[in-house]
C-alpha cells in the first residue's frame, strides 16, 4: 500500500500539474459541500437596485441583471454542477461497464448484438440526441443527468468491452475459472476491478465533458432553468451582456466552468500516468 502512496507522490512530483489539478478539485469539493456556509450573499435574493454592478469589495464578482451576487451564485452552482456531472457519469459508468464487460467477456452473439447497438448509438449525433432527450423528458435536473448519461453510455460500453476483451484470454482469468468461479463472478469480481484504473481516466475526462454538455444544453435553453444557479446558464445569461460591456457576468462563470473542466482533464491525464503500469517499477 505504501508503495502505491509512494508511486502517487512520485507521479505528482514528476508532473506538478496533476497536483495542482488535484488541489483544484479539492477546493471544488469543499465549495460543493460547505457552499451554503461560504456564500457571502443569498445566491437567489434579487435586488434590482443593485443590478449589474462591477466587481467590488462587497460583491467580489459583481452582480447580475437582478442584482444577485455572482460570487455567491458561483459557489452555489458548484454543488449542482458537480452533482450533475458526477451522477451522469456514474450512471453511464455503472451501466456501461456492466453491459460492456459482460459483452466483452462472453463474446459471441451477445457481443455482436451489443456491438451493433453501440454502433447505432454512436451513429447518432450525440449532442442533438441529448437535446432531443431533454426536450422529450422535460428540462429538469434529473433528465439532464439522464440524457448526459445516455449519450455517454456507448463510450463506456465500448471502452469496457475492449478492455475486458483484451484481458479475457489472460492466465488469471482462466485460472479463476479453474478455481471454480462462474462467468458472472469472474466478470464482476475479477475483470471489472482490473479495468477500473483504465476506466478512472475515462471517468475523469468524462466528468469535465458532462459539465460542458450540461452547459451547452443550458446555452440552448434546454438545460437547467433559471433562477437556479448553474454555471452554464450563468454563462448563457451573461453572454447577453458581453456587448454592453458587463464582462463579469460571463467571465466569472465561464472561468469557473473552464477551470473545473480543466481540473478534471488534467487529473485524468495525471491518473493515466499514475495508473499506467509501464510507469511503475
Amino acid at each position, binding site marked *: 500500500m505504501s*508503495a502505491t502512496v509512494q508511486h502517487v507522490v*512520485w507521479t505528482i512530483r*514528476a508532473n506538478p500539474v496533476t497536483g495542482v489539478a488535484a488541489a483544484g478539485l479539492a477546493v471544488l469539493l469543499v465549495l460543493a459541500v460547505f457552499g451554503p456556509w461560504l456564500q457571502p450573499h443569498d445566491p437567489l435574493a434579487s435586488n434590482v437596485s443593485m443590478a449589474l454592478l462591477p466587481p467590488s469589495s462587497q460583491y467580489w464578482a459583481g452582480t447580475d441583471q437582478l442584482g444577485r451576487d455572482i460570487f455567491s451564485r458561483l459557489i452555489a452552482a458548484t454543488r449542482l454542477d458537480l452533482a450533475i456531472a458526477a451522477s451522469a457519469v456514474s450512471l453511464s459508468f455503472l451501466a456501461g461497464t456492466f453491459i460492456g464487460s459482460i459483452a466483452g467477456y462472453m463474446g459471441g452473439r451477445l457481443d455482436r448484438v451489443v456491438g451493433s447497438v453501440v454502433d447505432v448509438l454512436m451513429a447518432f449525433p450525440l449532442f442533438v440526441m441529448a437535446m432531443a432527450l431533454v426536450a422529450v423528458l422535460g428540462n429538469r435536473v434529473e433528465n439532464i443527468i439522464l440524457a448526459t448519461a445516455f449519450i455517454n453510455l456507448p463510450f463506456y460500453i465500448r471502452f469496457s468491452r475492449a478492455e475486458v476483451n483484451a484481458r479475457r484470454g*489472460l*492466465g*488469471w482469468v*482462466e*485460472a*479463476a*475459472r*479453474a*478455481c*471454480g*468461479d*462462474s*462467468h458472472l*463472478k469472474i466478470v464482476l469480481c*475479477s475483470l471489472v*476491478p*482490473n479495468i477500473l484504473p483504465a476506466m478512472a481516466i475515462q471517468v475523469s475526462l468524462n466528468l469535465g465533458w458532462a459539465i460542458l454538455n450540461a452547459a451547452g444544453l443550458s446555452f440552448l435553453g434546454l438545460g437547467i432553468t433559471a433562477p437556479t444557479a448553474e454555471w452554464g446558464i450563468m454563462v448563457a445569461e451573461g453572454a447577453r451582456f458581453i456587448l454592453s460591456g458587463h464582462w463579469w457576468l460571463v467571465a466569472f462563470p465561464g472561468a469557473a466552468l473552464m477551470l473545473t473542466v480543466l481540473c478534471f482533464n488534467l487529473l485524468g491525464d495525471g491518473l493515466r500516468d499514475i495508473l499506467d*503500469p509501464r510507469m*511503475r*517499477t
Partner: protein
Amino acid sequence: MSEHLISVTDLHVGFSTRRGAVKAVRGISFELVPGATLGVVGESGSGKSVTAYAITRLLDRAGEITSGQVSYFGRNLGSLTEAEMRRLRGSAISMIFQNPRAALNPIRCVGQQIADALNAHGRLTRAEQRERTLQLLRDVMLTDVERIFRSYPHELSGGMCQRIMIALAIACEPKLLIADEATTGLDVTTQKVVMDLLSSLVAERGMGLILITHDLGLAARYCGEIAVMREGQIVEKGAVDTIFGHPRHEYTKRLIAASPTADSTIEDLVPEGEAERFAAPAPMKVSGAPLLLEVRNLSKNFSGFAAVSDVSFTLAAGESLGLVGESGSGKSTISRIVTRLLDKTAGEISFKGESIGEVPATRFNSHRARRDIQIVFQDPHESLNPRYTAFDSIAHPLRTLEKSLPREELNRRVRECADRVGFPAELLTRFPHQLSGGQKARIGIARAIATRPSLLVLDEPTAALDVSVQAIVLRLLDNLRKEGGLAFLFVSHDLNVVRMLCDRVVVLQAGKVVEAGRAADVFMKPTSEYTRTLLQAVPSFSFRARAKVESPVEI
C-alpha cells in the same frame, strides 16, 4: 589503429529511475579481434543486453554510460557526436534483436526496409538499391526473393523475419554483429537453422560476433569465447572449452548445473545445499495404479481449422505424462480441454471413470471434479490477478470450491500450500508486481494444489523463467508429485525438461500424435523422423553434444 575490433574497458552503465540510480553494468571489460565470436551468457537482469546497447549507444533515455570506454578499432565511440555515431551504426556495428517480427517495421515492406538501410549509408540509385537488397535476401538463403521483397513482416514466418533482420544487419557490411537473444522465442528447429546461417555468414565475411543469450547450449555451440555475466559484472570469461569444461566461478557452476541437458536428472539441476530445503522424496509407486484420465480420439476445430485431431492418451494416478511439440502443435489446446476450460469438438474424456467431456466448460466450474483437476499456467506474470495478494490467489480456489471453510482453516490451508511450494509466509500479503518471477510461479503452483487435486495440468510452467529458477521449480514439482501422489500432464516444448520430469511422453505435430511411449525410449531411440529432428536441434553445451555439430564454426 588497434587490432581490436572492439574493446570495452571498465564500462559502467547506470539507469536513473525514480528509486534513484540503478547500476546495470558495473565495470566490465573485454575485447574482440576481427572474426572472433564471443558469447555473453547470463540470466535476466545480468546486464548483458545493456552492454550491447551501450556499445552502440542505443540505450534508452534513462540509461547513461557513467564511465569507461568503448573503442572500435581504437576509436573511442564515447567521443563521437550523435551524427558520427549514426554513420557507424549499420556500417560498422549492427545488431540483431529478439522477436524479429516486432523488430521490423510492420507497415513497410521488408525489401524497402533493407533499402532504407542501404540508403542511409551511401548514395545508390533505386535500381542498385533493389539489386543489392535482392542479393542480400539471397545471401540469407531466402528463395523467391522478389515476392519477399514486397512482403510485410506479418506475412512471413518468424524464422524468415529473423533472416531478413540478419540481411538488414549485414546490409552495410559491418565489422561487428551483436545478436541479442536473436533466436529466443523461435522453435528449436527454426532456431538451429537461423543460428547456423548466422554463424556461417559471420565466418564467410570475417565479421566479429557478440552472441548474447541465456541459453548456455547455444553459446557453447556457436561461440569461441564465453563471458558469463551476473549483476552487471563479468564473473568469468575465457575459451568455451575452459568455461564449460572447467568452470571456476561458483555462479558459472550453478548455471551449468541448472541447464537441463540430454543426460541430466532433476537432482542434478539444483546444487546440494539448496536441495535440502525440500522434503526427502517418497518412493514412487506407479505400476498398478488405477487409471485416472483417459482421452480418446480428441479433436478440436477452431472455425474450420483443426487444432487437435484424433488424439488419444491415458494417464494413471500419480503418473507423469509429457506432451511435447513445437508451437502450433495443439498441446496447449489439449491442456485446456482436459482442464475443462475449453469444449472439445469430438472425442471422449473420462476422469476417474466418469465422462467429463460432455459437461460444457461453462458449467464445469460447479462440477465436483473441478477441484480434482487443476492447472498451472505458462506465464506466471499474467496468471495472477494483479489485484489479488499472494494469499488471495492461493485462497481463491479454496473459497470457491470448498465453501464454508472456516477462517482459521482457510488460513491454515493457504499457509500449508505456501509452505509446500517454498513460498515465504511473510510475503503472502504482497501483490504480484511486488514478487519475482520464481515467487509468482510458486504461487501459481500453490493455487493449483490448494484443493488437493489428483490431476495437475502443467502448461509450460517454466517457459518464462530463468534456468536457475526453472531448476528449482522443476525440482519442486517433482517433489510434489512424489510426495502427494499427484498425476501430471506436463506440456512443454523443452525436450530435456520433459525427459527429466515425465514417465511417458506424447510427441505432437500439427495437432496429431507422431510418437508416444516411455520417455527414456522416445528420447533414446526415436522412431519418427520428426522426433529425431527435434532432438537434434536442441543445443547443448555438453561436449558430447558439441561433437555432434555438423558444421562447426571456424574460430
